[in-house]
């Protein structure tokens, strides 16, 4: 069943490669020492960039079983060969560490100007270890690399002010700044990293890892030009891709933006409402809470990241006569319309905008934050938490109280902060320790990471696709919702487990390449095929990779990060949606009365493992699979060291 992989050695590496700067910077925050080394041509070929680099370094260098918020955890910044070129959406970077939220492989990707500035500064990867004795920020100013103490200047400040202050300090409005807010500083497991005001490396608590290392921010700027291996051909192909990226393939991201999905998901019964109790909402049906209304009444501008031809960032403004939050600008997408909107039963747009601006600025993930608030709201309605606990009421649909809750949750203040300040899984545990039975049932997470804007009732392929995601509940590791939504498979059925598994695997492997290149998933439709994706890599780097090669490397990267999870204690039961999806059906809509069947789900899950060449019982990659993927170095090292929460 496992096909014979094309060996990496079959792809010749030129003596000189382009695109990559091949500079790895190692920083030991404990003693403040910096050192530089060269990433070999083969390393760049085999691990492609962002996600691949992160997976390899975490496997090689992150001590097994490490406490994610201890100095021994490592924090990796990486980008691929494309930032700063005009390949659409290529100014992206990834951060990687063992996640405090999941206890497993942590990764988050962001865009804005940081990737391009870091590339021009000559950086390819930064590996950060240890813990600074006092709060510092790091400066990567071309070849000058140093730390600056910031206990009295930046520590405690929001991400937006931090960015402004640093840009003023450097007298440079183009300075690329990634920073954490008070959420990450206090080590909230949901702590995020914000850059360019509206862009976040949000998921899996990477901001908390920075906070645990006393690292407030990293600033980048560079003046090095970027040359590519085949400039004339690259220019031609890039221009074509820019055009296509403004065609039908990306129309939904540009026009209404992802919130266009509110209406279409609602029709499919997969727009999670009231903490996933329902998948449809009358506020969408009656036109109160739709992408159309959002755009018509609130969006004032669409903004792009560096070198992005789409420009998906929809900026909303609350008018100056609003009683609570006048003149507030926020950056809104589908996920946030779900997390602080439908999941919280909240159709008051300004409340959504205010909550999102709080999470972005004070520094926690806006998806995890909203889903944790939705859990609190359901717990409130179920009597598990009370007004006496919180100091205020918090039913679904709350507005000012939701904002109050959100602020306390981020800052770790009050009952809200103490119980809910580290996400849903911790909140469930803490409540149950307080004797509040069944609280965990209302935490909508997989592996500890809060669910994104997709309900799983009657989404059987995606129930598997989201559950097997390496970083926990996530729609961006394989995007297999399309398999159900577009009707490739019977969304309510349990047939074709292997075929479904293969379809998920195929998506997941190419998504791993997209995350390694790193480009935006919004541009996955602009390439004619995987061969064209491989071509663009060749034109920039000079390494003549093929379609099969990048698919295989995608597979290797997924497998390696899976190996990381196994070493940290992953078991089959971690690849499972929350209990609610097996017990409690929607009361209306297309998925009314439907729950996941345990045996059916397990059958589909085994089908995916089989398609991956993993043991169908345990879900652990077989030695043969690892060998075929060139991951021999993991064989015999998959014993659990623990550390999973």
């Amino acid at each position, binding site marked *: 069943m496992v096909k014979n992989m094309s060996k990496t050695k079959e792809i010749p590496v030129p003596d000189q490669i382009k695109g990559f700067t091949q500079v790895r910077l190692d920083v030991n925050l404990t003693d403040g020492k910096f050192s530089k080394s060269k990433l070999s041509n083969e390393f760049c070929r085999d691990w492609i960039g962002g996600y691949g680099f992160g997976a390899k370094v975490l496997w090689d260098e992150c001590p097994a079983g490490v406490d994610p918020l201890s100095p021994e955890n490592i924090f990796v910044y990486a980008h691929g060969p494309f930032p*700063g*070129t*005009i390949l*659409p959406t290529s100014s992206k970077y990834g951060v990687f560490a063992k996640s405090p939220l999941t206890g497993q492989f942590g990764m988050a990707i962001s865009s804005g*100007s940081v990737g*391009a500035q870091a590339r*021009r500064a000559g950086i390819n990867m930064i590996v950060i270890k240890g813990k600074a004795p006092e709060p510092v920020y790091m400066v990567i100013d071309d070849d000058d690399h140093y730390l600056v103490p910031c206990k009295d200047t930046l520590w405690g400040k929001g991400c937006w002010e931090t960015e402004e202050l640093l840009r003023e300090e450097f007298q440079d*409005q183009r300075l690329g700044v990634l920073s954490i807010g008070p959420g990450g500083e206090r080590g909230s497991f949901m702590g995020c990293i914000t850059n360019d*005001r*509206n862009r976040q490396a949000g998921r899996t608590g990477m901001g908390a890892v920075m906070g645990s290392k006393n690292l407030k921010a990293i600033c980048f700027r560079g*003046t*090095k*030009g*970027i*040359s*590519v291996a085949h*400039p*004339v051909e690259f*220019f031609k192909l890039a*221009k074509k891709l*820019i055009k296509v*990226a*403004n065609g039908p393939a990306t129309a939904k991201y540009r026009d209404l933006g992802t919130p266009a999905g509110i209406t279409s998901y609602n029709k499919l019964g997969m727009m999670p409402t009231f903490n996933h109790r329902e998948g449809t909402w009358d506020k969408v049906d009656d036109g109160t809470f739709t992408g159309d209304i959002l755009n018509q009444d609130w969006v*004032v*501008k*669409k*903004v*792009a*990241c*560096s*070198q*992005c*031809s*789409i*420009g998906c960032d929809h*900026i909303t*403004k609350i008018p100056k006569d609003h009683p609570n939050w006048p003149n507030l*600008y926020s950056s809104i997408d589908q996920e946030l319309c779900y997390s602080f909107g439908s999941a919280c039963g909240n159709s008051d747009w300004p409340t959504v905008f205010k909550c999102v601006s709080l999470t972005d600025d004070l520094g926690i993930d806006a998806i995890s934050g909203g889903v944790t608030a939705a859990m609190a709201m359901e717990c409130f309605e179920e009597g598990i938490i009370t007004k006496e606990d919180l100091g205020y009421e918090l039913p679904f649909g709350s507005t000012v109280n939701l904002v109050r809750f959100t602020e306390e949750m981020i800052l770790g203040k009050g009952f809200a902060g103490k119980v809910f300040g580290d996400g849903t899984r911790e909140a469930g545990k803490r409540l149950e320790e307080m004797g509040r039975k069944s609280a965990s049932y209302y935490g909508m997470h997989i592996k500890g990471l809060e669910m994104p804007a997709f309900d799983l009732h009657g989404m059987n392929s995606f129930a598997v696709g989201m559950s097997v995601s390496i970083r926990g509940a996530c729609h961006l590791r394989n995007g297999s919702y399309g398999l159900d939504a577009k009707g490739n498979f019977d969304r309510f059925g349990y047939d074709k487990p292997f075929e479904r598994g293969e379809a998920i695997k195929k998506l997941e492997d190419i998504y791993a390449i997209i995350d390694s290149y790193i480009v935006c998933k919004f541009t996955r439709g602009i390439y004619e095929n995987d061969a064209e994706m491989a071509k663009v890599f060749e034109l920039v780097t000079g390494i003549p990779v093929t379609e099969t090669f990048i698919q295989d490397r995608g597979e290797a990267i997924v497998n390696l990060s899976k190996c990381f999870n196994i070493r940290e204690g992953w078991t089959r039961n971690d690849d499972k949606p929350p209990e609610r999806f097996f017990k409690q059906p929607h009361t209306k809509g297309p998925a009314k009365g439907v729950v996941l069947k345990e045996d059916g789900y397990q059958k589909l899950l085994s089908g995916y493992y089989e398609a991956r060449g993993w043991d169908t019982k345990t879900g652990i990659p077989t030695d043969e699979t690892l060998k075929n993927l060139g991951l021999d170095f993991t064989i015999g090292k998959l014993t659990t060291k623990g550390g999973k929460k």
Partner: protein
Amino acid sequence: MSQTTKKRGGVVHQFIIVDPNLCTGCETCESVCSFVHDGEFNPINTRIHRVRIEPILNVALACQKCDDAPCVRSCPEKALEQDKLTGSIIVDDDKCNGCAFCIRACDFGVLNLHIQTQKALICDLCETMKDDYINEERGEKYPACIDVCPKEAISLKDVEQIGEEKRIDAVKRLFGDILKETEA
């Protein structure tokens, strides 16, 4: 590239205009500007300059081709010269010593110094772009930023066109009722 005209005695000052309503601030124009001139992407060597003022203002600026241009007048080395026909400012790299007086003189901040050569850079509507990067469909040199701008926010206009467009906008705004009647 400029069309033959008898207007203003044959002098047509076309320059780069960017519509802030369409501009998303993506910097593609800057990257491409440096690339078609130098063969590498480096926005610090651009001749068109994106400005972003958070949270919503995005636009790019390039040479406005001022009459009796202050940059030309300010140059102690007489390295800058204005082409009478096109209005473009031409930099003589042999004379330019990188003193940056032109940058200080420009009211729009659209000049800078090349980070490697230290010579003044100013938009010449891609007259000095490399032949390799000429748009095949056009078959001639043409501002590359216009061709790649994903939002078609950049255009090449002369003062008459700009005035005309502004007037039409204003008239639509002021007398739109009459237009509506004709449509009905």
